[in-house]
């Protein structure tokens, strides 16, 4: 008979360990949120005093040391518009094909793999590719078009994935009813499925705006760094993020850097708030 061996190590009370672990997890999450809040508050506190109508609407003077950031706002909007105009039909089209037309199979698997890989490509590689392909090979030069096309390639996976998720959330019974009334697949997609999936799809597009506005590495070698107002899609331009990078890195003007950063952060806050609001309404609508 072997008697019960009393354990040598004093055993920790599992209840106390549990409490300690829960406290540690709350702390970790709290610290993460605090870091986020600190970043936003820091930029806004230093940058908000700069945000006057002149700053937003005036031409920059002496390389951005003085004056405003108007051309960079126009440049950012132009690049984002080009990117979305191209990436939205391709991304949503891909999602519709995968979810409504393809019946699984190799092609669909390969396309999904391609989208996953594209989502992982770092922005500097998009920059290299955009430079050699759009700027040099297709002779578009540094331009709104080159930058916008590069950004389109970059946000394609985001738009496609959110659109596919939204399509998948549409109950199969909706389609069955539509098919039962004799509608074709395309009629079902455009009149039944897409209207229901629209908010989710829009969320992906809105989030892509955020990525376009904040992107630097993919844009600096494709759209250029010219501080002039871009007058056509073939003009070179400088986005807000690139302007901010140049101001900060070359130490041209800290107040102007903070001001530009504040515009960037406010844009991102707006974009995320809108995306979340749409998503919440969408969830409430579908379920």
């Amino acid at each position, binding site marked *: 008979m072997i008697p019960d061996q009393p354990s040598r190590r004093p055993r920790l009370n599992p209840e106390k360990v549990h409490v300690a*672990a829960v406290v540690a997890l709350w702390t970790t999450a709290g610290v993460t949120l605090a870091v986020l809040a600190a*970043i936003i508050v*820091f930029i806004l506190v230093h940058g908000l005093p700069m945000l006057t109508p002149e700053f937003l609407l005036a031409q920059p003077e002496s390389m951005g040391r003085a004056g405003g950031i108007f051309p960079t706002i126009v440049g950012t909007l132009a690049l984002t518009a080009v990117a979305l105009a191209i990436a939205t039909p391709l991304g949503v*089209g891909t999602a519709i094909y995968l979810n409504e037309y393809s019946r699984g199979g190799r092609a669909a698997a390969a396309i999904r793999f391609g989208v996953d*890989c594209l989502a992982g490509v770092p922005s500097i590689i998009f920059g290299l590719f955009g430079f050699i392909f759009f700027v040099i090979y297709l002779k578009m030069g540094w331009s709104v078009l080159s930058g916008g096309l590069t950004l389109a390639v970059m946000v394609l996976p985001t738009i496609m994935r959110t659109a596919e998720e939204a399509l998948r959330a549409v109950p199969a019974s909706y389609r069955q009813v539509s098919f039962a009334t004799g509608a074709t697949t395309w009629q079902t997609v455009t009149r039944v499925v897409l209207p229901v999936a629209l908010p989710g799809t829009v969320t992906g597009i809105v989030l892509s705006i955020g990525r376009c506005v904040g992107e630097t590495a993919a844009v600096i070698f494709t759209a250029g760094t010219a501080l002039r107002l871009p007058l056509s899609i073939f003009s070179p331009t400088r986005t807000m993020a690139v302007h901010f990078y140049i101001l900060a890195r070359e130490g041209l003007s800290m107040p102007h850097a903070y001001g530009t950063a504040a515009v*960037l952060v406010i844009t991102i806050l707006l974009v995320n708030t809108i995306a979340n609001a749409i998503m919440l309404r969408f969830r409430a609508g579908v379920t």
Partner: protein
Amino acid sequence: MRLREFVIEKLLFIAALSSLAVLALIAVFVFIEGTPIMLREGLGSFLLGAKWAPTKGSFGILPMIMGSIWVTVGALLIAGPVGVACAVFLVEIAPRQVADVVRPAIQLLAGIPSVVYGFIGIVVLVPFIRETFGGPGLSILSAAIILGVMVLPTVISIAQNALEAVPVEYKQGALALGCTHWQTILLVILPTARTGLITALVLGMGRAVGETMAVIMVVGNAVKLPINPLDPARTLTSNIALEMAYAAGAHREALFATGVVLFVFIMILNALANMRLRRRGSHR
């Protein structure tokens, strides 16, 4: 009617091929531009050469490879534990109302542009590290901390998916046997979600290796083999972005070759992560 349906289906199929086509274009153009110099210099001396003087004909990127490895490992040491802890918090601990606030906040963290992170690094973190630990402040440590925060959202969202996929019966079983909630998390939920958690780290690693602008601003960019976390270093990404603006001829080719190395590495990580995700997917 039938013809229209057929045309629409084909058009959608072509749209769907766009991602694959673009991926192929990226690979082809970056490789065409980058591989000749690798072959000319010899793959060994390009990857393992310690001297980078592109205007004088020395193209060794070992310091940048080491720089990227140091910075990435450092970032994962921060983002790994913190990310998994946040994911556990969101899935297991947080009351619904708290989780509903934390989730969008973490999404916001992912949305902040990398130049803003880099800027915060310059004005807050770099001086702090210079004064606290000595050295130039522009260092691997600064870059690792900034990157750690930046890849956190990636790690959290994928770890969260992995934890949510653990069947609720496992948890109920452990609790019924008298485990505390923490014992259940540590001994049942985390081990079950292991594959997904590793995927989260692998994708986080891909993000960290590929990040450019934030790193350039805080890492110091000195071309030398780093031996200490307080040393400045240069990564593969910062090497490309710093010199691309004025590079020409063989120098530019060498930067594209740096891009090839980066691209291949990221694709290997992606393939690993996707294989894992898919295998896990096939179980259910």
